[in-house]
């Protein structure tokens, strides 16, 4: 599969898009494919890592918009099975803040000699607006969209196919991550981190053992609660309480959800963009939160508790993609491969408190993280979790009601 960006691969893209559209999986299918996460399937990670390191030796030699054409000097000289294209000297990455291992970037630069420019965005909306601004990624090579956004990005030609020959570490993926529903055969993305969304609370202030979403409507905690400032997540919670799908597009369903949320609003202190800060600073006693965020709350407030309600919760994943206008496609694919390396992936998890998709990395992840069922739930719980799916133009139904709720 080529990953260059002249005219020809567009047909391939169109074929892929049509395939995906037809294949558009059902949620059940996706959940069915999720088998034991964190199962002790130790695959051979290290060999793959060794294999790719030899290819890179010459930094900055290739032209900035090189396609992986055969390089001048090394077609058959080394014992490498395939001729490795020369990576470009730079890489432009666009990611969330604090969403990568502390040493990952430096190690990549050391290994390949590629200079990484690492820009950040505060929220998914900013990210999408940016990469869609010219339809090709606005000059960036790599970004980290949520899996929900992949079908849309693919359809609109914003991301390009991966060069899997440059990503041998893909074999480290746990079996449920291979060929996910939103991206057949991982042709366009590699999973990065996944999480659950529950709620966290200050164990000092609240001694009760909280278990369900109804807590967030409890009058006792009026003025001390927060919900995430995220349309889909908030509506999902309402959905779980009403036993409705968080991916519904029915007006009736959404109106019911809106009503429930309006009852909640007077009890809330805020819709927070910084759940970690608000809870650790004491502004909120209870907050809707992502699992990894809870992990970070523990650093400043060890008594924080977290629960993934049995009545239903969202799970999601972030992915790595190469943008279609990427000026450094070879380096981009190498970056993805690098992050799938067991050690690096574990490093990422250990810093961010999120679980990665890397089965081989499991042994290297801090057991506080991998062993905690709230960050890394058992299969039985996982099966009950729901992935948010892309809604296309129907998202407007949510946005309208969200604005009405907030105003």
């Amino acid at each position: 599969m080529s990953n260059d960006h002249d005219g020809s691969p567009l047909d391939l893209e169109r074929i892929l898009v049509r395939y995906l559209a037809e294949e558009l999986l059902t949620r059940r299918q996706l959940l069915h494919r999720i088998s034991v996460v964190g199962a002790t399937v130790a695959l051979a990670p290290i060999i793959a890592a060794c294999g790719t390191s030899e290819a890179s030796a010459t930094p900055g030699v290739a032209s900035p918009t090189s396609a992986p054409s055969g390089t001048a000097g090394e077609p058959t000289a080394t014992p490498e099975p395939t001729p490795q294209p020369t990576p470009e000297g730079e890489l432009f990455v666009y990611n969330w803040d604090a969403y990568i291992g502390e040493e990952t970037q430096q190690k990549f630069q050391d290994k390949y000699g590629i200079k990484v420019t690492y820009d950040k965005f505060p929220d998914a909306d900013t990210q999408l607006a940016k990469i869609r601004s010219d339809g090709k990624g606005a000059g960036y090579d790599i970004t980290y969209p949520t899996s929900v956004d992949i079908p849309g990005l693919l359809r609109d030609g914003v991301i390009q196919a991966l060069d899997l020959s440059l990503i041998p570490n893909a074999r480290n993926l746990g079996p449920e991550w291979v060929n996910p529903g939103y991206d057949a055969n991982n042709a366009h993305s590699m999973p990065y981190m996944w999480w659950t969304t529950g709620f966290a609370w200050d164990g000092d202030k609240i001694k009760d053992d909280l278990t369900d979403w109804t807590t967030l409507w409890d009058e006792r905690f009026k003025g001390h609660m927060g919900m995430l400032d995220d349309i889909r997540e908030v509506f999902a919670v309402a959905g779980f309480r009403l036993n409705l799908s968080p991916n519904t597009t029915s007006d009736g369903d959404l109106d019911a959800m809106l009503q429930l949320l309006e009852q909640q609003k007077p009890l809330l202190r805020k819709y927070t963009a910084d759940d970690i800060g608000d809870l650790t600073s004491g502004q909120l006693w209870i907050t809707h939160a992502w699992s990894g965020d809870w992990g970070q709350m523990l650093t400043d407030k060890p008594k924080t508790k977290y629960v993934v309600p049995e009545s239903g919760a969202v799970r999601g994943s972030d992915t790595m993609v190469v943008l279609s206008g990427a000026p450094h496609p070879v380096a981009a694919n190498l970056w993805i491969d690098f992050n799938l390396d067991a050690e690096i992936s574990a490093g990422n998890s250990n810093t961010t408190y999120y679980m990665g998709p890397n089965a081989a990395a499991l042994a290297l992840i801090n057991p506080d993280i991998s062993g905690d069922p709230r960050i890394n739930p058992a299969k039985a719980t996982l099966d009950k979790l729901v992935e948010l799916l892309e809604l296309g133009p129907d998202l407007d139904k949510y946005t309208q009601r969200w604005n009405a709720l907030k105003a």
Partner: protein
Amino acid sequence: MTAAAAERPPRRPIRERLAGLLFVAPGVGWLAVFFLLPLVIVLIFSFGTKDPAGHVSLSHLGFQNYLQATRQEYVPAFFNSLRYSAITTVLSIVIGYPIAYWISRYGGRRKILLLILVMLPFWTSYLIRTYAWMIILRDNGVLNSILQTVGLTSEPIAILNTDFAVVLGMTYGFLPFAILPLFVSIDRMDHNLVQAARDLYANGRQAFLHVTLPITMPGIVAAALLTFIPAIGDYVTPDLLGGAQTTTIAKIVQVVFTSGRDWPYGSALGFLLMVLTLAGTFMALRTLRRETLGGG
């Protein structure tokens, strides 16, 4: 002050006119290219619609977005914006005037230095300053600690995430925008006039009301403009310092653009806001001019 009013000479030579045009040409030219032109593009968008793929479609131009924009649900947010901006403007001027006057009157040689001192906090990062206010105002923050130690309160009172915090934060942020034009206007006033008024048996208050205030009115007007207008568009401060009930219309516009990805609708909403602000400002200016004869 009547000099300005008398300044309507018919004997404006062509050369003066030309000079006038020459002065304003570069600024106007710049704004025309980099402001008006892009704005017109967005204005056209506001009459368009969003097609299913999420792109702007200009096939059905019409006022549908504007009609949609006047939804009843947005009214509270709109009034929030108005309220916060109005109070912020008044507070900024009320707080800004005395210090501008003090610097002008008693600053002596150090005037500019004192003025720069006013600006100094604003050369740090806005977000950090807002965070600092969050630290000060939060439930177990500096202010609450002080109140409790002094004995005025026994429990922390909720200051952060309320209207009060929002107005405080906004006033703080816009204070220099008020102080600078106020200073500029106050400074060029001849204080001998005030002295003269006192000699004529006016007391301090009368001297202020009838001499100082009218003369510095252009500065007050400038300060009001530079505060109120941008304040309407500020959604970050209410977002960070406010709570669930303090959403502003500016935030709604932002959500429509980003989460909703509905540029046509967002544009319409934004333009509506602009028109209302412009109309309100002109009306206010007109009343102000009427009440202070010859002012400005």
